[in-house]
C-alpha cells in the first residue's frame, strides 16, 4: 500500500469522525440549552472551546451567540472546525484515493457532502437544525458501516481504524475537559442541573444508554469519568479507542516503531484513579493524555506517511 494512500485513508476516517462528533455536540448542546433555566445555561461558548477553534472564531465573528457558533461549527466552509469543512476534506482525500475505496462508499460520501453543502440554510434555521445534524450523523455512521461491510479488513482499513479511533479518543478527552471544568464535584448529593449536564456529556458521545447498562441509572461524575475514560468496551471510551488502535497497528508492518507510545497512553489511562482527581487534577491529566495521543499520531506519520528513506519490502508482503 502506498504511503500517500495510507495517509489519505487515515485522514478520510479522521475527518468523517470529526464531522459526526461535531454534529453531535451541536445537537446535544441545543437540547441542553433548552433544558436548563436561563442563567444556569452553559451557553454556546463551550462548543467553540471543545473544537479548539477559539482564536479562529474571534477572528471571523464579532459576537459569541448561538447563531454565530452554529454557523462556525456547521456550515462555515472556511472554518477548519466546521462539519462542512470536515466533509469537504474527507471527500477531497477520497478523491485522491478513489481507486482503493469501495465505489458505494465514494458515492455515499459524495452525496453526504453535497447534501451538507446544498442545505446550509436548513442547518442554520432553528427548526431545520435537527434534521440537518441527524442527516450528517447518520450519513457518517452509514459510511462507517459500509466501510466495515464492504472493504477488506486489510491495510487500508487498518489505517482507517487508526484515524477514526485517534479522532474519537481525542474528542472524548476534549468534551470531558471542557464540560467538567464547569461542573464542580459534589460528594454525595447532586445539584439539580449538574445531573442534566453530566447526562449531556454522555449524550454528546451517544453514551447515555450504554452507561446505564454498565454503570446503573445514577449519573454522577466519578462513574461518568470512569466510563468514558476507562471502559474497555464502549466504542467512544478512550481506553477502548486506544485498544482498537493497538489491534489495528499490530496488523501493520514495522509497528514496533509505533507501539511503545500506544502502550504508554494505554497504561496511563488504565491505572488512573478518577475518584482522586480534583478539577485541576483532571484538567492536567487530560492534558497529558492529549499530548500522548498526539505522539501516537506523529509516530504513525513518521513511520508510514512521511518516511524519507524506506527499507526494501520483503517479497512475501502483499497489499
Amino acid at each position, binding site marked *: 500500500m*502506498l*504511503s500517500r494512500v495510507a495517509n489519505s485513508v487515515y485522514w478520510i476516517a479522521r475527518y468523517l469522525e470529526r464531522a459526526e462528533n461535531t454534529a453531535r455536540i451541536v445537537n446535544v448542546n441545543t437540547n441542553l440549552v433548552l433544558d436548563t433555566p436561563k442563567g444556569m445555561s452553559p451557553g454556546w461558548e463551550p462548543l467553540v472551546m471543545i473544537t479548539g477553534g477559539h482564536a479562529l472564531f474571534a477572528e471571523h465573528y464579532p459576537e459569541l451567540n448561538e447563531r454565530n457558533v452554529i454557523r462556525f461549527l456547521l456550515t462555515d466552509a472556511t472554518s477548519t472546525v466546521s462539519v462542512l469543512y470536515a466533509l469537504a476534506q474527507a471527500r477531497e482525500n477520497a478523491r485522491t484515493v*478513489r*481507486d482503493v475505496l469501495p465505489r458505494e462508499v465514494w458515492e455515499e460520501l459524495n452525496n453526504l457532502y453535497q447534501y451538507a453543502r446544498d442545505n446550509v440554510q436548513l442547518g442554520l434555521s432553528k427548526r431545520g437544525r435537527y434534521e440537518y445534524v441527524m442527516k450528517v450523523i447518520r450519513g457518517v455512521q452509514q459510511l462507517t458501516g459500509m466501510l466495515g461491510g464492504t472493504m477488506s479488513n486489510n491495510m487500508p482499513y487498518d489505517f482507517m481504524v487508526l484515524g477514526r479511533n485517534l479522532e474519537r479518543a481525542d474528542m472524548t478527552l476534549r468534551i470531558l475537559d471542557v464540560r467538567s471544568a464547569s461542573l464542580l464535584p459534589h460528594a454525595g448529593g447532586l445539584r439539580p442541573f449538574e445531573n442534566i449536564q453530566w447526562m449531556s456529556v454522555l449524550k454528546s458521545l451517544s453514551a447515555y444508554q450504554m452507561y446505564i447498562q454498565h454503570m446503573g441509572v445514577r449519573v454522577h461524575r466519578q462513574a461518568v469519568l470512569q466510563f468514558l475514560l476507562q471502559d474497555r468496551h464502549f466504542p467512544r471510551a478512550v481506553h477502548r479507542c486506544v485498544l482498537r488502535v493497538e489491534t489495528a497497528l499490530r496488523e501493520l508492518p514495522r509497528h514496533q516503531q509505533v507501539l511503545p507510545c500506544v502502550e504508554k497512553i494505554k497504561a496511563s489511562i488504565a491505572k488512573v484513579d478518577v475518584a482522586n482527581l480534583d478539577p485541576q487534577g483532571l484538567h492536567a491529566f487530560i492534558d497529558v493524555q492529549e499530548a500522548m495521543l498526539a505522539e501516537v499520531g506523529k509516530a504513525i506519520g513518521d513511520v508510514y506517511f512521511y518516511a524519507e528513506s*524506506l527499507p526494501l*519490502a520483503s517479497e512475501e*508482503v502483499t497489499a
Partner: protein
Amino acid sequence: MAIRWSQYTHKGFHDELIGPRGRPWPAADHVAKYLRSLKDNEIDERRTAADLAIRAMGVTFTVYNQDGGAIDRAWPFDIIPRIIEKKEWTRIEEGLKQRVQALNLFIDDIYNEQRIIRDGIFPAELLETSTNYRPQCRHISPRFKVWAHICGSDLVRDKDGTMYVLEDNLRVPSGVSYMMENRLVMKRVFPELFEQVSIEPVDSYPSQLYDMLASLSPRPGDSPEIVVLTPGIYNSAYFEHAYLAQQMGAELVQGSDLVVGDDDKVYMRAVEGLRQVDVIYRRIDDLFLDPEAFNPESTLGVPGLMRAWKAGHVALANAPGAGMADDKVVYAFVPKMIRYYLDADPIIDNVPTYLCMNPKERSYVLANLDKLVVKPANESGGYGMLVGPHATVQEREKMGRLIRRNPRNYVAQPTLSLSTTPTLVGHGVEPRHVDLRPFILSGKTIQTTTGGLTRVALKKGSLVVNSSQGGGSKDTWIVDAEEK
C-alpha cells in the same frame, strides 16, 4: 409532444439511427419504437434518473476557472443511445486492428532500422522536424515491438455514410472510463431495453487492459506489480485514472510515489517499505515523464525513469516516443504504411489529406482555403485550426502566410458533414453531430473496445464534441439486427 420520428429531419447529413422518411435503421428499430411510446413525464423521469445516477456516481471531468481553481463538472450525457449494426462494427474492428498494427510496426521501424525511409515511402525530413520524435528512444525495441499499447482513434461518418478515421491518439488517449460509466447509467435508466435488445456488453475492457499490461512485465511471475501513473487530481482525466486503477486492482500512483534506485529499478514508496514496480500505465506526457531525460522542470515525473526503461527493468505503456505517429502529417501516410508493412489495402479510409509540404498539394490548398479545414501537425484539441467555410478573409489570408512560411507543419482536409444522431431536446428529439472514439489495445494480440465512446456536440449545428466546449456523450450500442 413526445418523440415523433416523422417530424425528425436531418437533411444533408447521414443519421445514425433514422434513415430516409423517418424510418429507423434495422438495428435501431426496437429502440425507436420504444422511445416513441414514452410520454413526456416518462421522458422526464428517465432523464432525471440519468442525472441522478451520474451525480451519485461522481462521474466528473475537471475544468479550470479563471482563478486557477479546478472545478469538477458532472459529465453531460444524453440518454438516447447511438447504435451501430454489428456487421458494420465487425468490419470497423478489423480496420482498427489493421491500422494500429501498421502504426506500431512503423514506430518500431523508425526508432530502429528505418526501412520505410530507405525504401522511399516516408520522407526522412519529416522525422527531423517532428516534435514528438524522441531521439532518446533510438535502438530500443519494446516487447512485441509494440509502442502504442493503448490507442484511441477518432472515427467520423460523412454524409454518404462512409466511416473515416479522423485521427489516431497514440500518446495518452482518454475517454474509456466514460464509455463504461455511460453503460452503467443506461442499465439503471433503461433496464427493459437491455432485456429486449441484444446489446453487446462493454465491461471486459479493464480485464483486457490488465492482461495486456501484465504481458509486458519484465519480471517473470504471475502477479506483476502494475501501476497507473497520474499527474494528480487536477488533471482533467483524473477521474479516469482512478477508475482504471480501481477496476484493474492496480495502484494509482503519482510521480512522487515512485523512486528509481541505483540498480535502475523502479520502486514505489509503500507502507511496507519499497516495492518494485514492473509495469507503468502512464497518463503523463513524454516530456514530463523523467526530468533527467526530458523537461528538467517537471515535478510530475520520476527522475531516472528512462534509465530504468532502457535497462529493461520496467515496461512503460505507451512507450515514450510513440507519439511521433500522432502527427497529422504522419497520419496522411497511414494508408501507405498499411500497404508497406502488411501488404494489404486499408479497411477504413483516411479522410483525404493534403500535405502542404508537397508543392502541388500546397498550391491546391492555398487556392481552396475557403473549402478546406487546415490543421497544424502537432496540436490537439482544435488549436490553431482553420475551418475554411466559416473563416473570414483575413483569417484565411493569415493561414496562407503561415502555410507558406512552414509548409511541413500544415495539412488540409475537405470539410466533412459529420453524421447526426437523435438527441433529447426538451421532450422531443433533434439531430446533433457525433463522432466515435474506440480504443485499441496492443500487446501480444490486438483487441478493441466494443464500440467506443460516442461524443456529441450538444449545441445545435455545432461540430465541437469536446466536453469542455459544450460537448457531451452517449452510450454506444453494438446491436445484432439479424438475431431476432
